[in-house]
């Protein structure tokens, strides 16, 4: 069992850090699935006592890592699956945020216990030589027999998906709406309109986003709507640390809302907010 990955481009390092920082804000722990060409992070819905939704990120290794090597424990296995504290991983990677990092290596090794060592070579003003900062993030190795519980979630089939060009107003809105109502109804229609409705005993708040791009239409649906837990929605938007402004909202009527942020071509962050009864 071996895993080793190296990053060198400051832009990619920052982006990778931002993805992990987003997960850090969502839950204490996450699952890392290391494949031969792909890396996945999953934050499970039930894992945290907070109102955190299911969120996962898929990262094509070539995008970020000029060097990437994974050997599973057995030749017939395709992955290494690890449980890791997202808080620790986030803190270990936080050095990448500032820039001035030459390179950053991730390495699975055993010290007193298995861990992912994050080895950053940092340039400082006080010296011409780079300084080495090492964080050993403890991990739990999840044996192959348990993998069925840790599969990468499937993107649901939305009846209607709309592309929102800017997250900014929605983000602040959702954060405030969670104080008004425990559930939010998302309504989308073929005119490219999205309504978010919060209802409480004292008020009804209807927010309207118009002229959105229509990404997917399944069948002859004119519109689709779904109500979700407002704290879960707010947890997802509140956690976002990525610079991306675009968001795709897919509505699978009666089942769930799928939120997707394309960080780049093969680096995608997803979340599923399950439907709640109104």
């Amino acid at each position, binding site marked *: 069992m071996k895993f080793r990955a190296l990053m060198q481009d400051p832009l990619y390092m920052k982006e990778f850090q931002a993805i992990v920082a987003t997960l850090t804000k969502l839950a204490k722990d996450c699952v890392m699935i290391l494949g031969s060409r792909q890396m996945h992070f999953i934050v499970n819905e039930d894992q945290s006592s907070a109102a955190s939704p299911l969120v996962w990120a898929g990262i094509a290794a070539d995008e970020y890592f000029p060097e990437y090597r994974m050997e599973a424990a057995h030749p017939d296995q395709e992955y290494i699956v690890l449980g890791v504290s997202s808080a620790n991983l986030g803190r270990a990677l936080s050095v990448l945020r500032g820039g001035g990092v030459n390179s950053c290596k991730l390495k699975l090794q055993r010290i007193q216990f298995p861990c992912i060592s994050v080895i950053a070579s940092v340039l400082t003003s006080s010296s011409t030589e780079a300084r080495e900062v090492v964080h050993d993030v403890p991990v739990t190795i999840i044996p192959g027999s348990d993998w069925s519980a840790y599969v990468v979630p499937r993107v649901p089939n939305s009846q209607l998906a709309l592309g929102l060009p*800017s997250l*900014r*107003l929605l983000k*602040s*809105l959702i*954060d*405030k*709406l969670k*104080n*008004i109502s425990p559930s939010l109804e998302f309504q989308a229609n073929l005119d490219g309109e999205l309504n978010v409705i919060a209802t*409480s*005993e*004292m*008020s*009804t*708040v*209807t*927010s*309207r*986003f*118009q*002229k959105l791009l229509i990404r997917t239409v399944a069948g002859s649906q004119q519109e689709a709507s779904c109500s979700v837990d407002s704290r879960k929605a707010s947890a997802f938007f509140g956690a976002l640390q990525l610079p991306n402004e675009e968001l795709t909202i897919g509505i699978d009527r009666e089942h769930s809302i799928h939120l997707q942020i394309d960080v780049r071509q093969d680096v995608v962050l997803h979340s599923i907010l399950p439907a709640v009864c109104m």
Partner: protein
Amino acid sequence: MADVEPSPYGDCKFVARVEHIKTLTQAIKAICFNDYGMLQVSEDGLRITVEQGKSIQATLFMPPGAFMEFRVQDFQCFGVKMNVLSECLSLFGSADCSLRMMYRDKGDPLKIILYPHDDDDVSTECAIKTMDCDEPIDYDQNLKDPDLNVIFVRGPNLSKVFNELEKSAEEFEFVTSPNRPHFKITTVGIMQAVFSVEVAKTSPMMMMFNCKQTVVARYKSQQIRMTNKAMQSATKVAIKTNSVGLLELHLVMQGDSQEEIFIQFFIIPLLNTD
């Protein structure tokens, strides 16, 4: 008065528009210390009054000139939940919005529609339930005496002075006097320490100083601190006390439109126990 109603407002008894909501939002938040607020609309403008117990009252007053558009039929009076109103105004966070406010008639909700300035494709409509209106306490008459102590101070400076008062104090003692100390606030009820702050009447922060008698009165520090938020955004403050220490803080806030808006606090002094 409007004789022909334009159609978008239908048969609304009260319609108002504000181009930038920042000051209004700040003002509403500044008086949000109790759940229930009383809205009174007349041709004079809009008043929102919040009280707590019988010892503190705050009134936000916006004259018609502070609105882009202001139309009212008769005198309207209704109650709303202040936190709901405040939450609705801040739905878009720091993004600047324009606002339209509508109220049809007794029993109908107050409608507030926000339009963010930087995105024409987004809007939010809030329908806030209204309640029956109580009568606010009228302190104004008590402060009509000719021999009040009156001080006008620059808002940001006074805000700093208030802000530096030790927060763990239970009470503050205010002294206003024609002689030294002209204006002094002392903390009461801190273990092992006493703090005070004194402003000379010649200080550049004083815009007017007119004290005829020495008035010493104590107030709950918690109530004085309720004025902090308003003080932070005030340009000018009038401090008035009568001989028994009834305190009026009259704050002037520069609205985003041409005309100023006002917040008036009345605070009842504590009984002198010593």
